[in-house]
């Protein structure tokens, strides 16, 4: 009689279950990739090689300030490619129903199999998700001296290569993200926004200083100013119909990242690409402490030598200095690649 449940239990033994329940989890790129990395860390800690991502999209009962029963599908559409960045993912299940009966069967299977899950089922039932902190990641790094990284999402490589061929040509792409939440329809934590004037001036100067570089401006379509998009050394993939999946592919396939502390910075954090994250927030350091990381630390504990953070507010000179440092690191690799 309970054959399906028995099958669910036996299927749960060799995998970790990641539950992203949008009744309480935030829909944001940075939080999603941090969640995904923690899920991979959990799976590795328990010695399992597969993860299963369960996304629960209830059609109503939303708690978020901006996501409602009217626009939730758009939010899902925008964030979906981020879930495809986990190389350990063996299956993806999206449940959208009022009762969540089918997802309950899956979770019950995991509960009975005592399989690892993130968040833990105890936390999931309490709708309590630690989506920000790096404590578990730091702890895993302390034990193993490595962490599982993100990879480019499946299915976007061919179109991204076409974008590079058509629009970038022989220039070197550098992915930039200027946090401008105030320009969007869902403004949040505006103190983390970067000054557009400073970035515009930096990009104008960069035309002369680094003529072979093209800055690929990624992020929400509304989150950039027209004057920045009009610069000849700036490309915005979204005006050519490309989306988050293509931007993530471009970034995770090795283009250096330079930008403010936001969602794309979190993607770079959990990858092998060279990066410099500007305007890192003092408030955020509390969530990331451990392994010697504190206010003003240059690197995350698990970062490579070519991955670092800047804590001071951006000025044009600071951006020029930071980018010169990043460029000096990337240039030998670019030469070799060419």
């Amino acid at each position, binding site marked *: 009689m309970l054959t399906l449940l028995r099958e669910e239990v036996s299927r749960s033994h060799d995998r970790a279950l990641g539950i992203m329940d949008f009744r309480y989890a935030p829909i944001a790129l940075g939080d999603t990739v941090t969640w995904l990395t923690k899920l991979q860390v959990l799976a590795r800690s328990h010695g399992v090689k597969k993860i299963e991502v369960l996304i629960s999209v209830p059609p109503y009962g939303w708690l978020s300030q901006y996501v409602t029963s009217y626009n939730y*599908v758009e939010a899902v559409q925008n964030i979906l*490619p981020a879930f495809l960045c986990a190389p350990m993912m063996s299956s993806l299940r*999206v449940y959208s129903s009022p009762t969540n009966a*089918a997802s*309950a069967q899956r*979770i019950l299977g995991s509960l009975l199999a005592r399989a690892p899950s993130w968040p833990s089922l105890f936390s999931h*039932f309490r709708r309590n998700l630690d989506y920000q902190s790096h404590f578990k990641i730091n702890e895993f790094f302390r034990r193993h001296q490595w962490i599982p990284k993100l990879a480019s999402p499946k*299915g976007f490589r061919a179109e991204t290569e076409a974008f590079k061929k058509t629009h970038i040509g022989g220039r070197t792409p550098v992915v930039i993200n200027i946090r401008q939440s105030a320009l969007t329809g869902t403004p949040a934590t505006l103190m983390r926004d970067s000054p557009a004037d400073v970035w515009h001036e930096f990009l104008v100067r960069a035309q002369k200083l680094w003529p072979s570089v093209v800055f690929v401006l990624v992020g929400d*379509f509304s989150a950039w100013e027209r004057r920045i998009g009009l610069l000849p050394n700036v490309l915005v993939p979204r005006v050519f*119909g490309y989306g988050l999946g293509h931007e993530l592919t471009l970034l995770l396939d090795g283009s250096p990242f330079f930008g403010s502390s936001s969602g794309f910075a979190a993607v770079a954090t959990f990858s092998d690409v060279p990066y410099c994250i500007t305007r890192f927030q003092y408030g955020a350091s509390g969530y990331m402490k451990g392994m010697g990381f504190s206010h003003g630390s240059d690197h995350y504990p698990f970062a490579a030598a070519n991955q670092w953070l800047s804590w001071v507010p951006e000025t044009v000179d600071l951006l020029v200095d930071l980018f010169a440092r990043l460029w000096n690191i990337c240039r030998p690799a670019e030469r070799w690649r060419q």
Partner: protein
Amino acid sequence: MTIFGAVTAGYSRYRAIRNRFLFSFVPYLVSLPRRCVRPVALFCVGFTRTIRHGLRNSVRDQSTSIRLGHKVINNPGDLARFAVKLANRCGIGDLQQDTSLDVILLADSEADISGYVLVPYLRARFFNIHAVYDAAELDALLATLGGADAVAGLRSDLSQSGDPVPLDSKAIGPPRLPAFFMNEAREFMKSHDWSARYCAISPVSGTFLAGWIKALCQLAETYPNWRFLPLGLNAFVTERSVLPSNIVVPGRAGIGFLTQLAIAMQADAFLGVADVYGICSTLTGVPTTLLAEDTRPAAVALLEECPHVRRALAHAPLADELAMLLDRADATVDNASAPATGEFVSA
């Protein structure tokens, strides 16, 4: 210490204790239900509900749910094939509130599945998607979804990959996208020129630049009230190139995939290949001309009895085809079958 000093000190101490009580202890007491009772209550409700729903789902009659299997291949026409299979399986009015839709995807490792997760919104608001990347995973997944009878149909669905899928007559009927996308599409067209008529275009891959712009420019004088909306990634011309004023590319305004589907459904005419946009306009009843590509076999086989759809070859003279289409669309000014609004969900 003077008496005055003692009174002052005593009063200060009293104020300190009172403030600690008022601003620390009272808020703590007030927050106790939130801090303690709420998590416990949530845990009890969540745990009980998971057990109840999980057990009920595993013993329920699996034949009440609609199931669709699809093998996702890295091919531009495959999403259209999936949309037609979905429309055939979930005809208009088939999905009731208590019927669940399960979509099982066996994906090629190089295929993008995000479109497949979104396309079911054309037919249903409540559904479950199960995507796996290899056959062993699929077997384990199917075992959790039903008995041998229920799974047999799915296996047959999943074994078909590149064959053209015929469109059933019962599938014809306006898809129901969420209201958000229908509204965004309508506002896009209204804000550009509310009084114009719009022809959605899904170009043949790689042929847009030269031939299409020339054909659309030729038509600008004959049909001054028409605007053309190229959809999808093939719509993009080179960076910052100047387009004639009667061509508007929605993707350049940050319009996403589902809103572009809504544009195909709400436009006054459609010209293009039988991709997912073409299928949407066909299902909706928009006057449509579908172009068959020489280089690719058709993903879908359309009904003969679709009066609003005309088939043409991709290398046919574009200006002539467009002129015929716009004349047909002008003859049917009132597109009665197009949905005026999207679907709302209320608790």
